[in-house]
């Protein structure tokens, strides 16, 4: 089960507190009321019993008295039931109705021994008070049973009323907890909102100051943290821009100057021409190395998705690279997908370059476009990628074993790392498989919408 949220916990604590308080108050109220009512009933019952007992003693004074008649003459009101026990025999006004069995033996023994006694006993569904008065002068015991049905009904009503009040108090407590917690958690909610904006790149998001000094501390320190993070991120950005500028500027000079040399290659002697060729190819490699490194440095940038006709883009790429048109194997029900066209083109170009460099050239570009994703496969007929190298090839500056044995390559070693970065910016996947029939197959899956 998931742990309860802070707000739910605060609400629960408030509800439990209200429940505890109201329940103990209710129990105390009930107990006090109950015992005072019972005491009062007991006193009344005892008073009545003694009065009646004196009448019975008088009635049993003569020889061979009519006990039942004496009992019937008693004015006991509606509720009190008189009983007489003499010589082990019970006398009542009418049929027993189980009254005598309700009188416990210990009470009878006590009364027989000459001690008056009062006890509360269960009687049928409810309970009753039994008052026993010894009539030693006439050799009998007098009992009066007063059912407590009325009292218990009253107590029942009281209990339900108190229970309802306790329940209402608990609900009120929970409501107060819910409302109070919203008030208390509001600063947290605004911090969460601001943190979300910052995570998505908006460094201008700040938390509003709070009038409460305790909460204000949170807002102030959060805002200070954001200031520092954004200053640092801005410094990083500026550093990257400066580095980029400092690297690109001399490369521009090199590139333009070598193109002047290259144009005059025909008029150079062989040694100079060979040197110019070296210079030209290394400047070109250096250019792509710097471009790739600067691109890799932008790893935090999100994909700039826009509806893109990836099939048309791929076809234009194939034509521009002068690959045979048959190399493109495009299927699927859609052609347009929300992807970053610049990144897609770089993925395609780097995979095709990789196939040319390490796999003897691309033999098939499979492209399957659906509404929600595209699957791009670039196949070559080279030696393939051994299983234990399949993760390594995507690392920076990883080169295929074959190429390092050849002792050099015009690649930067960053092509597949860039592919990985572009694919990750789309939350897609890239993997290398065996091509049926030999060679390597690089498969890229780009989802059309951010997952």
């Amino acid at each position, binding site marked *: 089960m998931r742990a309860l949220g802070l707000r739910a916990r605060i609400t629960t604590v408030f509800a439990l507190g209200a429940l505890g308080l109201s329940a103990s108050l209710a129990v105390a109220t009930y107990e006090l009321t109950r015992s005072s009512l019972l005491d009062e009933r007991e006193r009344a019952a005892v008073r009545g019993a003694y009065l009646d007992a004196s009448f019975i003693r008088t009635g049993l004074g003569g020889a061979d008295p009519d006990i039942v008649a004496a009992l019937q003459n008693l004015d006991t009101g509606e509720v009190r039931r008189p009983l007489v026990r003499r010589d082990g025999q019970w006398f009542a006004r009418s049929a027993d109705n189980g009254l005598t069995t309700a009188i416990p033996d210990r009470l009878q023994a006590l009364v027989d021994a000459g001690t008056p006694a009062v006890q509360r006993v269960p009687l049928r569904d409810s309970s009753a008070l039994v008052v026993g008065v010894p009539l030693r002068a006439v050799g009998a015991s007098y009992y009066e049973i007063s059912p407590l049905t009325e009292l218990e009904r009253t107590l029942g009503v009281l209990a339900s009323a108190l229970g309802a009040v306790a329940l209402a108090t608990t609900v009120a407590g929970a409501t107060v907890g819910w409302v109070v917690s919203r008030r208390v958690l509001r600063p947290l909610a605004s911090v969460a909102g601001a943190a979300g904006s910052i995570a998505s790149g908006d460094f201008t998001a700040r938390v509003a100051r709070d009038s409460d000094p305790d909460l204000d501390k949170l807002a102030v320190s959060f805002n200070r943290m954001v200031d520092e993070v954004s200053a640092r991120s801005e410094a990083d950005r500026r550093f990257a*821009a400066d580095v*980029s*500028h400092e690297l*690109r*500027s*001399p*490369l*521009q*000079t*090199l*590139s*333009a*100057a070598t*193109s*002047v040399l290259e*144009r005059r290659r025909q008029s150079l002697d062989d040694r100079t021409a060979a040197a110019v060729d070296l210079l030209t190819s290394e400047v070109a490699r250096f*250019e792509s190395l*710097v*471009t790739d490194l*600067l691109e890799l440095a932008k790893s935090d940038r999100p994909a*700039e998705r*826009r*509806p893109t*006709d990836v099939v*048309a*883009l791929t076809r*234009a*790429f194939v*034509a*521009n690279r002068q690959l045979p048109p048959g190399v493109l194997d495009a299927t699927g029900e859609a052609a*347009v997908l929300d992807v970053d*066209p*610049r990144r897609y*083109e770089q993925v395609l170009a780097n995979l095709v370059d990789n196939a040319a460099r390490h796999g003897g050239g691309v033999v098939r570009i499979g492209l399957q476009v659906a509404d929600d994703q595209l699957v791009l496969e670039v196949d070559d007929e080279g030696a393939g990628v051994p299983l234990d190298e399949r993760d390594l090839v995507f690392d920076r500056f990883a080169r295929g074993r074959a190429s390092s044995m050849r002792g050099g390559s015009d690649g930067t070693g960053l092509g597949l790392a860039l592919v990985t970065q572009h694919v990750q910016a789309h939350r897609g996947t890239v993997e290398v498989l065996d091509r049926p029939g030999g060679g390597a197959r690089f498969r890229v899956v780009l989802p059309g919408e951010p997952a």
Partner: protein
Amino acid sequence: MPRLLIVEDDDRIRLSLKLALEDEGYTVRDVGTAEEGLAEHKATPADLVLVDLMLPGMDGFDCIRALRRLGDVPIVVVSARDDTHDVVAALEAGADDYVVKPVAVKELSARLRALRRRASGSGENDQKVLRFGEIELRPEAGEVLLGEEQVHLTRTEFRLLCELAEQSGRVLSRQQLLDRVWGYEVYGDERLVDVHMGRLRRKVERDPANPTHLVTVRGLGYKLAP
């Protein structure tokens, strides 16, 4: 020979580009500041201008704006900066194209050639007139009228409008427009098209925010609706 003006504060880049572009057949003048560049262009108007963005004194953005006020000479930004922000700001200021250093001379030369191209047309009939609502386009004469008023477009804006007009209502994708107007054969920066389309709308649409003729077709590109 087309006259090319290079505004670039780095002496070595300026000299190497001058040498390389002279090889490509341009008559090159080169200056180190925007102020000098503007004076040079006023004295002898250039056919093409290359501008760096980071310049001492007046910066590249202001330089582009000032050049734009003087006329519709094609302007290409050659910058080490590739932030979206810089690219869009430079295009909004009035640049026709944007390349990031280091750019190969062949590539730069292709960009410049594309911008020098005239609006495509059959050339059969100088009096050809295309009408789209209030917009009246004369491809051969290089004129655009909005109602009775003559509208002044840069060469690139005019070619963009003509390419869409030639299709008479069919949709052209951004990549197709990049190919036809800017000469990008494979992948070109689609922001070029979007910013130029915005500029064009501000000139020929009555309500540029709700265009009725230069319409965006989501997922496909743009079309010129009658």
